[in-house]
């Protein structure tokens, strides 16, 4: 009986503090990043947990995109970047030379601010990822394309024009296509950098619904300037300021009673 009570207490504790009991996919420890001489990320410590949506908020230029691009090592394409510290993806150090970036990125998709479909057909856009990872079988590709488009809730809108140009789609559809393109490589994490900032409210809503519907299967880290969006869709929120993390907490805490005065000022629009 006492044992049972203890267990219930334990479960309740976990449910109440749902911020950090899930398994971390990404763990960042003491990360610093410099663009040339400018110190863009300062001693970042953050974990991104499995099958959660982690929102990254903060004023312009505080390093949100930089952090996101560090997670899939795209930031290293900028000349003159220096990184110190430690990031692990599922326990493996990603900043060292052990894991080829291509390997990492086949598990971690990225969605950009501006929809960036390839100048190819809708079908070829989705099939791109599977093809570069070696899938040649037409039937398999067909299945992946259909499946990914369905997950992205785009199938009904495009099933009659799969072989037409992706550029014929609206901006919102293009962005959902880009998410579908990510889903096609069956990623464990999707990094999204302001995915709705170029979209109208209706398309934004659709993308948010899409995020909610896939979050049971993939871990999502999303950068957003839209406070409502962060509070609507995310489980945890990290507040960045001037290259530092000011506060990481459950989204409810961040938006209802943040620990830090700066967080409070920011979410209430007093700066930024």
């Amino acid at each position: 009986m006492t044992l049972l009570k203890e267990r219930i207490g334990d479960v309740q504790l976990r449910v109440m503090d749902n911020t950090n009991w899930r398994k971390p996919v990404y763990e960042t420890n003491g990360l610093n990043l410099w663009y040339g001489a400018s110190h863009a990320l300062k001693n970042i410590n953050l974990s991104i947990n499995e099958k959660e949506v982690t929102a990254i908020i903060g004023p312009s230029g505080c390093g949100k995109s930089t952090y996101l691009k560090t997670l899939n090592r795209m930031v290293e394409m900028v000349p003159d970047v220096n990184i110190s510290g430690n990031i692990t993806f599922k326990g493996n150090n990603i900043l060292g030379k052990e894991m080829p970036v291509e390997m990492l990125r086949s598990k971690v998709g990225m969605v950009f601010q501006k929809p960036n479909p390839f100048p190819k057909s809708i079908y070829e856009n989705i099939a791109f990822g599977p093809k570069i990872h070696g899938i040649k079988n037409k039937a398999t590709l067909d299945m992946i394309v259909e499946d990914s488009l369905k997950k992205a809730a785009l199938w009904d809108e495009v099933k009659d024009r799969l072989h037409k140009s992706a550029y014929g789609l609206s901006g919102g559809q293009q962005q959902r296509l880009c998410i579908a393109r990510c889903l096609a490589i069956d990623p464990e994490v999707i990094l999204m950098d302001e995915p709705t900032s170029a979209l109208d409210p209706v398309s934004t809503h659709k993308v948010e619904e899409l995020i909610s519907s896939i979050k049971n299967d993939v871990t999502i880290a999303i950068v957003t300037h839209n406070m409502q969006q962060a509070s609507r869709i995310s489980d945890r929120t990290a507040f960045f300021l001037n290259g530092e993390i000011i506060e990481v907490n459950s989204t409810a805490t961040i938006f209802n009673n943040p620990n830090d005065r700066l967080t409070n000022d920011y979410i209430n629009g007093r700066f930024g």
Partner: protein
Amino acid sequence: MEYISTNRVARKMSARLLLNNLSKFIFLLATFFGIFVLGVLIYRVVSQGIGWLNVDFLTGRLSTQADRAGIMGAILGTFWLMMVVVPVTMFLGIGTAIYLELYAKKGRLQSFIQTNISNLAGVPSIVYGILGLTVFVRTLDFGNIVLAGGLTMSLLILPIVIVVSQEALRSVPQHLSEASYGMGATKWQTIQKVILPVALPGILTGAILSLSRAIGETAPLVVIGIPALLLPFPGSILDKFTVLPMQIYYWTLDSSLMAEYANLAAATIIVLLVALLILNSTAIIIRNKFQKRY
């Protein structure tokens, strides 16, 4: 406080509109000057040469007798020359452009190479002829065969092909390659599957236009030493050869000896112009076809 007074605007208005129309007229005039000269040129050439243009002329062998001379040898020579120039410039030109634009680290060495390539594009063609003579004809001892001429011509247009291809590669939006890298594509996969398909129309257009330069060029071949009266048809890139513009050059040179040679030159110019027209149209068609697809 009023900064822009309506009165002042009205006063100046007619002068501004006049200047506006005048500028349009000046640019129109500039364009018409070019078109007019071209028109005169084409009229002169066609009226002089069209009577000499017939099947015998196109398929015949060279001859000192004007009414028996044909230009099949020169046509074949131009063809074989292209068989050397096209693969060499495509491979070296696009390859160099890909390396410089997509692989080379931006730095001193890269900008040094870049500057030199741009400068090479401006070097007079006769200098390339001297280079070709020294390197291909004499040092490598090819003699004045198609291969030597083709390599020389390749060197001549290579800088242009490189620069144009670089331009085309650079104009591929960065967000496309980012999307590809973001999915885990390697650099080569990204180049092959994303960057090249987008850049290809630009590259091909530039390459074809450079080829038409190589087809019309004479100076380097004069230096290499092309025989004025070559009777056998070239059958491979290892044969001696002549090309259409060389034939025009020699016939024009000799028209003081025999007036009909000028007519033969005119007829040959028509053939050359038609060939260039076909090439340039192909360039335009390729560009439009690829651009419309997506």
